Structures are given as C-alpha cells and as structure tokens.
C-alpha cells in the first residue's frame, strides 16, 4: 500500500513522515527536476506500507515547481490513499487544499495537525462535525509528539480498502458552471483511459479554469488531445456554445457578459470553496477573540525596523560561526586521521615492497582524494543543522522579508539572502540553500551567480597573499578592494542575466510567515543526514578522479623536476595566455589545480615556488617572484574564475543539468579574466607595477 502525504507548506508533513517511518527512508530526485522527495517504509505487522512525503503546496493548481511535482505525482502515480495534513491553527486556508483533494480523489484522510498549538490558542474544533461536513475521515494529530498516528493509519487503511467512489464532494458551484461547462466536459474526460469518474470531474473543472498542467496531462492520454483542445482556449467551445445561455445573468445595463473567461471561472471556483469553508468553520470551530499571541510578540522584535536587522545580523553571524569556525576542529581532526592513515598505509606499502609509483599513488593520490571528500562533511553537517533549525522555527521567513527590498534591487529575492551570505562560508551548501525559492528561474539565477562569492577557502588564500604583498593597512585596503570587486561583479552579472536569458518571472514573491515552532531534533538531524549523504554520494567519484589526475600530472614523466612534469608543461602552455596578465606557468598551474579544491592552493603555490614550510617562507618566495599588481590581478582572477569541482557538481544538481552548470562555469571564467584584464590595465595606467 502506498500513502502520500500532502498539505500546505510548514504544516508538519515531514514531522509526521519521520514519526511514521523512522530511519527507513530514501531520498531521490523527482525525474527531470531538482526537487527532492523522500520515500519511507513503515514497520507494520500486516503489510508493507510505503509513505511518500510530498512537497508543500497551497493548492492543486500547479504554480511552483514543488506544486507541479506534487500534482504530477498524484495524477500519474495514483497512491492508494492521500493523507492531507492540515494545520489546525490555520484551518481556513488549509481546508482549501483539503477540498481540492476531496474533489480530486475519493481516497482522502485528513490529519488535523498541530492540535497542541490550537489548544494553546484556545481554539476548539468539533472533529466529528468536520468529518460529517467534509465527508472524509478527520483525525486529530500532534505530529511533533507522535500523537494520533495509529488512528490515522487505521483510517488510511480503511479508506484504501473501501469503495472507489466516495460521496459527492461537498462544495456547491453555480449551476451554469456545473451543468453548462463542467458536466459535458466531465463525460468526455471520464471516457479517456485511466481516468475514473471522480477524477474526471476535477480534471474538467481544472480545464475550464485554464490549468496548464492538467491540460498537458489530459492531452497526453490516448484520445485526450482532442478533449483538451475542446476545453483549451475558449471554454465556451467545450459546452458546444451553450455557455452563453447559462452564463451569469446580464449585468445592470442589460449587457450579456458573454462566455466567462478561464480566469473568471477560477475566481468563481475559489470563491465557492471559500464560501463553503466559511460555513464549515462557523459550524465546527470556536476561536477566541484575536489577541497578541506569542508569534505576534516575537515578530514585534524580529521584524522591528531597527532591532530586526540587528537580531538578524546576530543570528546569521552565530549560525555561520558555528558552521564554518566552530566546525574547524572537527575538520582538522578528520584531516589528521587521514594523514595518519595515509602514513600508515605508505609504511605498509613500502614494507610490502610495492613499487614506488604505487606508494606515491596511495600517499599523494588516493588519500588526498578521500580527504578532499571527507573534509566537507563537518561543516556541511553543521551548516545544515543551522539551516534546518532556522527554517523549521519559522525565522528564515522573517529574515527573507527583512532583506527582500535589498535583494530585489539586485534582481534576486529575500529567500535567497541566506544562501548568498552563507556562500562566503562555502558555496556548496549555499547552492542547496537556494531551494527555498519556489520559482525555478530565481533559483537558477542564484545558482549561476553564487560562485562569484569567495568562500572560506578562497578568502584564506586572498588573506595570505594580500598580507604578503601589501604589508600594514594596505593589506586591509586590498582585501576590501577585492571584496568590493566581487560584489560589483555579482550584481552586474545578475543584472546581465536578468536582462538576457533569465528575465524576472511575473510570479510574485509571496511569503507566508508561519507561526513560530520549536523544531524537532529528529527533523533537523534527518534532513541534515539526507543532504550530506546526497552530496557525498554525488561528489566522491569526481573528487577521487580529479585528485588522481593531479597526482599523475605531477608524477609523470617519472623522475622529472616539477617544471618538466606534465603539469609543468601544461602550465607553460597556459602561461602563453597568462602572460597578458603577468602570470607565469606556476601561477597558471595553481589556478588549474585550485579547481579541484581551493583549500590546496596555498600548498600548491608553496611547492611550485619551492618555498619551505610556514607562512614567512611562502610569502618571501611569492613576493620575490611577482609584483604587487600582478599579485592583485591574480587574486581578482582567482577569486572569480571557477568555483571548485564540488561546487560545479552541486551546481549541476541544483540547476538540473550540465548545460546550465557549463554555462555558469564558462561565464565565470570569462568574467574572471575580463575583470582581471581591466584591473591590470587600470593598475598600469595608475602607475602601479
């Protein structure tokens, strides 16, 4: 048996899902999208029950990618039962989706969740009466405390085994709409294969509202093309011209308003549903007079015109401190363990008498590769714990609202702010954090520009080099200059993308500000585990091969000095181009190798410039090999050019294909070298050298 969990965003679907399935979960991508879905299996003594956690949707009319995914699943995969999770504290809005689902399928059970929060607010719901009025089972639950789950599953099983046709959906639409438009179309749709009578009615209702996703679905069914066309541009045609006679009574001036347009029908349908909901609520819910609740009080602080920004700064700063600074000892420990393991293995291989090449491969190829993969784990894990915590509590929505105005200026929006800021820590999780934007185009744009933001690793290289070349206050100035260049580049590139291939979507930014909730530890940890695991499972393959390639480039031809190795020869070839900037072969090799992991750039430079251990030796080697202008130009290019390999792999995943990732990388390289050239020329003109 398969159960799908549907519901508005933030109502507790995932909490319920986690409570039902425990650790028996699997994450995957919806085919053709970047939306994840999680399926899980329930431990049940009688049968195998698969549960699917659908993305949150406000309605069944697909608007965001998440909604499209949810609708597609319901249409094409046909779960045995749909559990609609509804937030009891926001019943009026939540019942809208419930009504749509009741119209869509006879197999619906409502989980009336957040009953604890409702009770705290003094809200009382007559569950029995609600059940009667809706015509489907309603089970009160508190997902966060696993309350009500067994009755919920009992009802789900009962409904799944019950008759296919449930009682008529309860909402009454105007007669002219029902009989004039929907009924004739329903008959045609119901005659198509794989569509039952119940769903046919809903499909017909969607078709006359101009729902494109449903249009596509019906059109691809055998024989469906003609039916869809009938309902297509002119709804009147579907009813064979009878609409006019059923149309609303003529207006005050006696003018026949003509056949209703899809948009007007959508309005009438929504209105009928909300009118019905108002009636239901009058009958079942007793709400105490509105008073300043806890959420209102907290918002007074968090959305305060002054304090709000200060608090946000503090929240984000401590979040990033946790993720990128406090996790450092963990990373160091992973590092040390690997170095030790590498040494032990090297000793073992030499005592086994294996050839030098194999020993070098193991010590300089495989272990650094594994290290590169694992070094991500500590801060990704902490980052996602922080991220999920802010998301689940409801704080992230507030922060998005606070900064939306500024983000709008540069062509992005508030929900992308956290991702952008966190990119200064590491681009990789920042790319995942763009998920919160429901519009795929906004998400894609954020994905394309985030790599321009220098991450921790790049900032480290920049700090060391600026300190070496610009001693004293000059170093700080150079660093600020670099950061300003990166912000200016980011904004101009965003602007360019908006003017060319990714214009602003007409869809609005509408942010729901949910009630504050104390998140459950299980939710946060499971989500973190899923994200880290997904990342590792995708990246390890690339990273290991890349480090092996670097090993081979520097190792062969066997015994040659670095300048004559394959890497050296490649560097010399690239230096023909780099010469325009004053970059020699060593700097080009460091740029190339930096692609695998930016963290290694300093040690690569150290090796290439023949520096000994330690900062002083490296800075001395570097300053004697190039001028400050060359160094500054190098840092500009280095800061902007290509994010590391992990970022590119993640970009591919988040943008849905190599095409976009490839474009992003190409733009990165082009922009980096273009900006570098400008900086170099301006520097020469200003008399720097």
């Amino acid at each position, binding site marked *: 048996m398969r159960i799908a969990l549907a519901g508005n965003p933030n109502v507790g679907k995932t909490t319920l899902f986690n409570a039902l399935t425990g650790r028996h979960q699997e994450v995957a991508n919806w085919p053709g999208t970047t939306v994840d879905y999680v399926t899980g299996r329930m431990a049940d003594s009688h049968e195998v029950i698969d549960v699917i956690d659908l993305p949150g949707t*406000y*309605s069944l*009319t697909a*608007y965001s990618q998440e909604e499209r995914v949810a609708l597609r699943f319901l249409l094409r995969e046909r779960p045995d039962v749909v559990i609609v999770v509804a937030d009891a*504290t*926001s*019943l*009026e*809005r939540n019942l*809208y989706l419930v009504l749509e689902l009741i119209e869509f399928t006879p197999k619906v059970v409502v989980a009336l969740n957040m009953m604890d929060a409702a009770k705290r607010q003094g809200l009382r719901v007559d569950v029995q009466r609600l059940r009667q009025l809706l015509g489907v089972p309603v089970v009160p639950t508190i997902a966060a405390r696993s309350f009500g789950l067994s009755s919920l599953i009992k009802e789900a099983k009962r409904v799944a085994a019950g008759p296919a046709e449930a009682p008529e959906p309860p909402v009454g639409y105007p007669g002219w709409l029902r009989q004039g438009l929907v009924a004739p179309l329903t008959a045609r749709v119901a005659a198509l294969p794989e569509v039952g009578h119940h769903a046919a009615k809903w499909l017909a209702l969607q078709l006359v509202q*101009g729902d494109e996703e449903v249009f596509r679905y019906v059109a691809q069914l055998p024989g469906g093309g003609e039916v869809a066309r009938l309902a297509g541009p002119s709804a009147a045609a579907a009813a064979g011209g009878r609409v006019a006679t059923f149309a609303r009574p003529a207006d005050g001036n006696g003018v026949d308003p003509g056949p209703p347009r899809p*948009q007007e029908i*959508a*309005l009438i349908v*929504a*209105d009928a549903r*909300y009118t019905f909901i108002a009636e239901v609520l009058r009958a079942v819910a007793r709400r105490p007079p509105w008073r300043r609740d806890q*959420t*209102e009080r907290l*918002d007074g602080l968090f*959305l305060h*015109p002054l304090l709000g920004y200060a608090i946000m700064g503090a929240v984000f700063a401590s979040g990033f401190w946790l993720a990128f600074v406090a996790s450092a000892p963990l990373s160091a420990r992973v590092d040390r363990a690997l170095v030790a393991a590498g040494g032990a293995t090297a000793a073992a291989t030499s005592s086994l008498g294996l050839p030098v090449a194999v020993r070098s491969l193991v010590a300089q190829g495989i272990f650094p590769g594994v290290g590169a993969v694992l070094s991500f784990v500590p801060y990704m894990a902490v980052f996602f714990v922080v991220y999920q915590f802010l998301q689940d509590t409801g704080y992230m*929505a507030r922060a998005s*609202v*606070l900064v*939306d*105005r*500024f983000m*709008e200026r540069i062509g992005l929006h*508030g929900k992308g702010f956290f991702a952008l800021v966190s990119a200064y820590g590491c681009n990789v999780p920042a790319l995942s954090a763009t998920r919160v934007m429901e519009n795929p185009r906004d998400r894609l744009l954020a994905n394309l520009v985030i790599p321009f933001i220098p991450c921790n690793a790049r900032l480290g290289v920049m700090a060391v080099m600026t300190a070496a070349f610009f001693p004293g206050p000059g170093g700080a100035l150079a660093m600020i200059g670099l950061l300003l260049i990166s912000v200016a580049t980011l904004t101009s590139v965003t602007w360019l993308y908006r003017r060319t291939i990714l214009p602003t*979507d*007409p*869809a*609005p*930014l*509408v*942010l*729901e*500000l*949910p009630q504050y909730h104390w998140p459950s530890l299980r939710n946060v940890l499971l989500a973190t585990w899923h994200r880290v695991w997904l990342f590792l499972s995708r990246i390890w393959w690339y990273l290991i091969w890349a480090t092996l390639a670097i090993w081979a480039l520097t190792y062969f031809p066997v015994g040659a000095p670095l300048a004559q190795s394959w890497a050296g020869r490649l560097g010399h070839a690239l230096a023909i181009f780099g010469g325009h900037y004053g970059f020699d072969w060593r700097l080009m090799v460091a740029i190339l190798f930096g692609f695998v992991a930016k963290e290694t750039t300093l040690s690569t430079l150290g090796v290439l410039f023949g520096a000994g251990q330690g900062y002083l030796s490296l800075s001395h080697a570097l300053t004697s090999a190039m001028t400050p202008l060359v160094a500054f130009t190098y840092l500009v290019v280095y800061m902007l050019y290509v994010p590391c390999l992990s970022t590119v792999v993640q970009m591919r995943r988040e943008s849905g294909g190599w095409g976009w990732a490839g474009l992003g990388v190409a733009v990165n390289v082009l922009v980096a070298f273009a900006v570098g050239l400008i900086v170099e020329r301006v520097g020469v003109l200003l008399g720097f050298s």
Partner: protein
Amino acid sequence: MASVPAVRLSDLASGAKGQVQEVLGHPAFRQRMLALGITPGSPLAVLRRLPFHGPVEIVVRGTRIAVRLRDAQQISVLLRR
C-alpha cells in the same frame, strides 16, 4: 458600501482593516492570490509595513503573508470604518 472608495493595499498603514475588492495583474499572480485565500470580499488586516519600502505584512483568513509593495499595488481594498 459602494460609495466608499477602494484603496490600494500598498497605500495602507499598519493596523488598517478592510476587505479585498479586486486583485489585478498577471494571471500567475492572481492565481497565487486565490490559492492563498486573497479573494474578493475576504477580510484583511495590515499587520506591519517593513522599512525601506519593503513588503507589507497582512493577515488574511488567519494566515500571515508578506506581499511586495509593487505587488500590493495590484490589490485594492475596501476600508472598514
């Protein structure tokens, strides 16, 4: 009632209360508003306006929603007095 002029949501001060009169703009925008329960006749209250011409936060049908100022211009409201 008909004599009370409608105001744009973007012009309302925090604390104002009224009813949605009409939602204009792109179909995708209107569709979204419908799903969120912003339909003609639904009661609405302005909770606060964010600084720097940021979004307007409203309560509709028991839910808090932030709408960008530019989008709020597309929503006309009949004030309750």
